[in-house]
């Protein structure tokens, strides 16, 4: 139990992954499939960001050199450890990829509705075999 609480980010991410996978496979409405795909992708982002977290870490700006930001949070935590910036940068790129796929899939959904008149994948059967 203690392990689940200390790894709670990963556990929630895996639950979301399974919910997304379930929605992708079992739901028949096209919009629900796209929403499930988004949930699937978002769960992986949550897991990545949890990887890069460091307890008692500040966010990644070096406060001492920048005249725009105050040193309050550094004084509050009392430690000089900075968080790992690599996963955050990766997730910026991955979020953009998800947006691209969603934009493209939505335009396909518009066309599917115009051709078939329905959003139910059980009725969209132009291909056979």
């Amino acid at each position, binding site marked *: 139990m203690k392990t689940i609480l200390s790894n709670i980010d990963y556990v929630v991410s895996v639950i979301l992954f399974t919910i997304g996978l379930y929605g992708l496979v079992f739901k028949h409405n096209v919009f629900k499939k796209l929403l499930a795909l988004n949930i699937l992708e978002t769960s992986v982002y949550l897991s990545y960001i949890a990887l890069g977290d460091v307890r008692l870490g500040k966010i990644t700006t070096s406060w001492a050199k920048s005249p725009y930001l105050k040193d309050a949070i550094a004084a509050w935590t009392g430690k000089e450890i900075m968080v790992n910036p690599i996963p955050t940068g990766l997730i910026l790129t*991955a979020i953009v990829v998800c947006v*691209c*796929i969603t934009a*493209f899939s939505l335009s396909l959904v518009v*066309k*599917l509705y115009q051709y078939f008149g329905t959003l139910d994948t059980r009725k969209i059967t132009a291909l056979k*075999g």
Partner: protein
Amino acid sequence: MEGTHLQVLLPVGLIVSAFFMPVIFRWRRKLSEPVAIAASLLSLIFSWLIFLRVISSSEGTIQYFLGYSWSGLRYLPTGEPIGIVMRTDLLGAFMLIQISGLCFLATLYSKRYVPHLIPEEKIGFYYTLLLLFTAGMSGLSITGDFFNFYIFLELSGISSYALVAISTNKESTEAAFKYAVIGTMGSIFLLFGILLLYASTGTLNMFYAATQIDKIFAPDAPLYLTHFRYHIYAALGLLIAGFSIKSAFFPVHAWLADAHPAAPSPVSALLSGIFVKISGLFYLIRFLFTIFGAHKGYYGFFLPPFFIVVTILTAIGGSVFAIAQTNLKRMLAFSTIAQMGYILAGIALISKDGLTGSILHIFNHALMKGLLFLCAGAIIYKTGIRNISDLRGIGYKMPVTMGCFTIGALAMMGIPPLCGFMSKWYLLTASAKAGYPILIVVLLTSSLLAAIYYLRVVGIAFFVPPARHNNINKTNGGQIQEVEHRIEEAPISMLIPLICLTLAVIFMGIFVRIPLKVVSRAAEILLK
């Protein structure tokens, strides 16, 4: 050995020409095809220069470092590179020349083919997507970093979804939707696998991760390191799942049968010829052998039986479904699924001969399947026929096209002087040496089934006289006409790629030593 700037300039040049393609299409319509063809030609020249440089290097890899701006410090004290490294090894360079060659031929072919299929205003977008697809695939074979791999995979993947959907009719839209959803699901599995790999090795560079995994599996590793072995097993499982979806192995092959026939023919040739293999099997080889080290015995004896079961199902299942098809391109798509099974057989044996056979088959299949899809496209362009049973007597109307199709079909079946025979021979001898006679039976059965469905097409085309109700065109359907033996061949700019590929198929079959030298050296480097 030091890398060249061309490793970076190749994808960047292609994407810059892709950025300007909509603008060129809007302002000077006539310049858009020449610009696309020039960009592909330039990428072909660059890829040959990179390949020559890789061959002439002593250890078979070249490295290009990015991101070491200030101090010139490329490596940290532990040996880990800062920033992204474009590390191209011999296998990657070999894939690169296939990609550039086939993309150039497809762009040349599209000049006449595309205006008949797609409305006028979309042609600029078609060439943009084709250039971005080429850029993504070229980058995939050059890179040496996990996240660079993911972003190139998505770039080429999304371009391929859009290229399938661009001929907007009912079938294409439905096929593209299914393909997009299933392909994205595969990419998410890959991303999750990369997550677990990053969590246990702490680096995003592929080759440094290999040394870290060696430390984890070393016999004298301390306790906290052996704890990470579970993460490596889980990462391997997720990555194999993701790559299985991307290369259409048996249980998850459904998207390929819908997506590849629904695309325009040059795009089908590119998808079946290179995309499904580079994004799926080439990276499976690289992950399994270079990074995870399957040949070093870390995973016990679990992997070969699992892969052999998948191979049997894919090779037999693909061929059996192909026999039942009536649409020509759908039959070719199922044949692709069967050939993926062949390539997996070589990987499953984890030996030098098996890998040589697999890589050689990847190369040969790119040539053969590209040739077959382009021939099918020429037939569709000239006569509009998509079903096999309507192909009666077309051998007399389009002799060059059907001649090339016959040579491609004979090569797919594995007839000796053509290229398909050599790679199948390597696979058979490798499975005999490794002691899996069931693979020999499966591969020979699959070749026999391939003979059935390919010879059927060739027979209908040449040996069945055309019916009285000829001319199954869209304009005049079913008029009774006099049977004429006029030759109505496809235009020259569509015939040139066909003839080039046919000559390559014959040449690579007779002079098989030339690719074999490269391929066996690549397999040696992988298994070091």
